[in-house]
């Protein structure tokens, strides 16, 4: 592709504080003026979202529709969505879906994202749900809009609808193509608001012209020139930058404080409300150094647990198992086994570490608060902020500029609450941008977790039973997909928050939550069983799979890699893993080089094949796979939070090591043609493989079986077989 394929972005100017504040949808319609507005109410979208995550009651506003689009009198089409852009690409792929369904040129489609006053209610951008669940609603809206346009054109052109066709933003008479009228002309003078609740007829996949075409990111130009606005780039007149006092540990209580030294700095304002203490100044660096002058003493509770003892603790506090799936008879399976192996797998707490720290700008004018913030769930943030400052929800507007990475971490909205509280107290606009140290302290880490697997294989190399228990990682990805006659899968505790006395700090969703832990354990254990059966690990998987989609992706990866079967450890350093996430099937093969003296691992090559149903933007999907593979190197090899009780010891990137250029393997991605199936998730699936993929390759290289993530040099050395 070259830059000529690049599509200019016409992103609504969300930073303009003078943008209107509609009080209701009626007012919103009035404000939009003429044109055609389509609302869609597809109940299943809401219920699908809620099934994924129950986050308390939905707000009443606006409850009756999930998506809308508008065709203006200028012919421009605007899509309004509560989803946000954090690098995963909906700013490009959603207009792609809309343009195709509507027969509108792609460059006439604008998108407004994550603005609680302008966009329909949305649960949040996570769980790879944008394309799967919002996509159909948007396509339905577009199909309905197209139907309205055809009706209008029929009247205007005096041609029966059956004789009309739409293309390139215009409707024309198929018998006389010169007799045509553009969408803009049709929208002129109209005030049409259409609600649909049924399922309008959508285009057939074979009729798509724009969907399935690789497109460059629409926001690329603004992002390489520095023009793209993130929350911290918003400056309002009279705005103060706030730095909030951070306790030394979770659970610490403020005993005494002397803020006088901070107040001595000219221009500094100190706001204190109990334990909540902040220093404000026109310049953030001055606020930060003034904050460091504050003398604060905290009572820090005695540490009960640390990064070494956490696993025993988590087992001790685990609630009883919830059985997720079971079948056959485990005892019968044990009897039929020629080899039985029982193993535990561990993984540590992992940070989100988005390059953009949590940031918010709050402005309160009269009875209305406006908060620009880096968030994955603007409507959730709206509710939290409203409660914190005592405003009705509809008097809080959350606007989401570009988000500098989320990965689940920006479903936590504390910075928006801090900014709003401070703006209210200071009577001025306030920006809160967390320092990296704030970020490591407040982050809702991926939970440490344990998986215990007991399984057996029979004399034919078939898995005879599978008994699986996961503790504190959650259910996603726990259910195995092999053809095993006797099986049981159970989960202990939630994968979101543990509850009191479980984790010493906040935990939550981390890219493909639960599935990284579960797939590491399952695919490592499958490899162990393959070795026990004396079989090649790809051959062993194929022998135990009945699911055709999984067989297809596994074979595709093996073929692309040039897999030659061998029993492990073959000393070649090759590993395999497969899994399912967000409806997508994924398999990968890796080659690694292990320095057994130093314990270091270099991943040389990764081939990854994916069946994700219909692909909207193949280029965007490949980028997500590459991103998953690269990001996944971190949790596999180095990323681990060290802590002593509630004190997080890692505070910056000196001790918390992110994947670097020198770590990155040759990556080959393969998206299998499955366009007759509905689109599935793309932002998360490939990352779930990385733990087991590398663990299995290390085993193949050295015979060392790694049972704990991350696989640090120390752990690799410890696992080396004794000579």
């Amino acid at each position, binding site marked *: 592709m070259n830059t000529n394929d690049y599509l200019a972005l016409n992103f609504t100017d969300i930073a303009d504080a003078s943008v209107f504040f509609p009080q209701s949808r009626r007012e919103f319609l009035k404000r939009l003026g003429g044109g055609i507005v389509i609302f869609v109410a597809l109940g299943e979208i809401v219920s699908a979202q809620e099934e994924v995550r129950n986050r308390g009651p939905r707000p009443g506003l606006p409850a009756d529709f999930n998506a809308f689009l508008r065709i203006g009198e200028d012919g421009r089409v605007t899509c309004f969505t509560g989803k946000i852009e954090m690098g995963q690409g909906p700013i490009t792929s959603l207009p792609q879906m809309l343009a195709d369904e509507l027969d509108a040129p792609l460059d006439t489609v604008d998108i407004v994202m994550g603005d609680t006053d302008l966009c329909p209610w949305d649960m949040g951008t996570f769980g790879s749900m944008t394309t799967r669940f919002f996509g159909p609603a948007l396509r339905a809206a577009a199909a309905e809009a197209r139907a309205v346009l055809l009706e209008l054109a029929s009247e205007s052109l005096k041609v029966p609808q059956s004789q009309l066709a739409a293309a390139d933003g215009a409707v024309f008479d198929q018998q006389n193509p010169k007799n045509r009228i553009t969408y803009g002309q049709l929208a002129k003078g109209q005030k049409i608001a259409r609600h649909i609740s049924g399922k309008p007829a959508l285009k057939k996949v074979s009729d798509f012209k724009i969907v399935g075409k690789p497109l460059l990111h629409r926001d690329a130009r603004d992002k390489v020139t520095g023009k793209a606005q993130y929350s911290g780039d918003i400056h309002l007149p009279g705005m103060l930058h706030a730095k909030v006092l951070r306790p030394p540990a979770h659970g610490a209580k403020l005993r005494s404080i002397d803020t006088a030294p901070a107040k001595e700095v000219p221009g500094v304002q100190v706001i204190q409300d109990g334990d909540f203490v902040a220093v404000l100044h026109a310049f953030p660096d001055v606020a930060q150094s003034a904050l460091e002058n504050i003398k604060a003493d905290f009572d820090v509770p005695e540490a009960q647990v640390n990064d070494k003892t956490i696993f025993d603790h988590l087992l001790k506090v685990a609630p009883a198992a919830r059985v997720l799936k079971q079948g056959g008879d485990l005892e019968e399976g044990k009897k039929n086994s020629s080899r039985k192996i029982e193993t535990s797998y561990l993984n540590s707490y992992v940070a989100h570490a*988005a390059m953009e720290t949590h940031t918010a700008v709050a402005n309160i004018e009269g009875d209305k608060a406006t908060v620009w913030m880096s968030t994955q769930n603007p409507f959730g943030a709206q509710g939290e902020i409203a409660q914190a400052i005592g405003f009705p929800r509809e008097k809080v507007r959350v606007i989401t500029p570009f988000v500098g990475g989320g990965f689940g971490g920006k479903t936590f909205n504390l910075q928006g609450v801090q900014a709003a509280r401070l703006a209210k107290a200071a009577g001025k606009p306030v920006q809160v941008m967390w320092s990296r140290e704030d970020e490591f302290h407040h982050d809702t880490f991926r939970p440490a977790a344990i998986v215990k697997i007991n399984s057996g294989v029979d004399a034919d190399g078939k898995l005879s039973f599978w008994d699986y228990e996961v503790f504190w990682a959650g259910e996603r990805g726990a259910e195995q997909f092999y053809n095993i006659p006797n099986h049981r899968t159970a989960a202990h505790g939630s994968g979101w928050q543990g509850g009191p006395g479980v984790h010493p700090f906040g935990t939550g969703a981390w890219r493909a939550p639960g599935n990284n832990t579960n797939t590491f354990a399952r695919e490592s254990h499958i490899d162990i069983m393959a070795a026990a059966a004396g079989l090649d690990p790809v051959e062993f998987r194929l022998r135990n799979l009945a699911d055709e989609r999984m067989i297809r992706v596994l074979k595709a990866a093996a073929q692309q890699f040039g897999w030659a079967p061998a029993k492990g450890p073959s000393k070649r350093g090759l590993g395999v893993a497969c899994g399912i996430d967000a409806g997508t099937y994924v398999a990968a093969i890796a080659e690694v080089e292990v320095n057994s003296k130093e314990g270091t691992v270099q991943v040389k090559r990764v081939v990854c094949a994916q069946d994700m149903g219909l692909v909207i933007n193949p280029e965007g999907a490949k980028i997500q796979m590459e991103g998953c593979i690269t990001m996944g190197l971190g949790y596999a090899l180095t990323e681990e939070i060290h802590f002593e009780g509630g004190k997080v010891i890692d505070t910056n990137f000196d001790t918390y090591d992110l994947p670097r250029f020198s770590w990155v393997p040759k990556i080959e991605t393969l998206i299998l043609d499955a366009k007759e199936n509905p689109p599935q998730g793309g932002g998360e699936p490939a990352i779930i493989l990385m733990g087991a993929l590398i663990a299995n390759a290390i085993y193949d290289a050295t015979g060392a079986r790694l049972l704990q993530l991350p696989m640090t040099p120390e752990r690799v050395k410890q696992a080396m077989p004794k000579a």
Partner: protein
Amino acid sequence: MPDAISFRLNDKPVRLNADPDRTLLWVLRTDLGLTGTKFGCGDGYCGCCTVLVNKVANRSCLLKLKDVEGKEVVTVEGLEKDGKLHPVQKAFIAHDALQCGFCIPGQVVNAVSFLNKNPQPTRDDIVRGMNHNFCRCGAHTRIIDAIQSAAAEMKGAH
């Protein structure tokens, strides 16, 4: 009273009455409104705040205002000339070498500095030259490709 500090910023002279011990990153972002330069870690690890000082990449979170007295500072906003993007910027777009985009100004500026020193790099040279700029989304392979093709294009231009 703060001292006046003079330097060139994106080809224009700047004279600031500000505390010379303030951090360059925040002076750029707040006093001068150049928000393309990002804050990522505040300690020089991540490279989001990279700017050119006399054509060499520097972490602006580690520089004080007085460190650039009399020098030439270029931020990501200064790379575009007469409406034309720098070849490195064009190559990042053409290779789709970004996701969330937050680290990209720092990556682009560091790549420009790197190519000034090494106009015909090997892939390994690029990896070494970029190794201290972080990208959490994992755009690394595309960034390497983009820098390679920018190098090829710039060779033609010089």
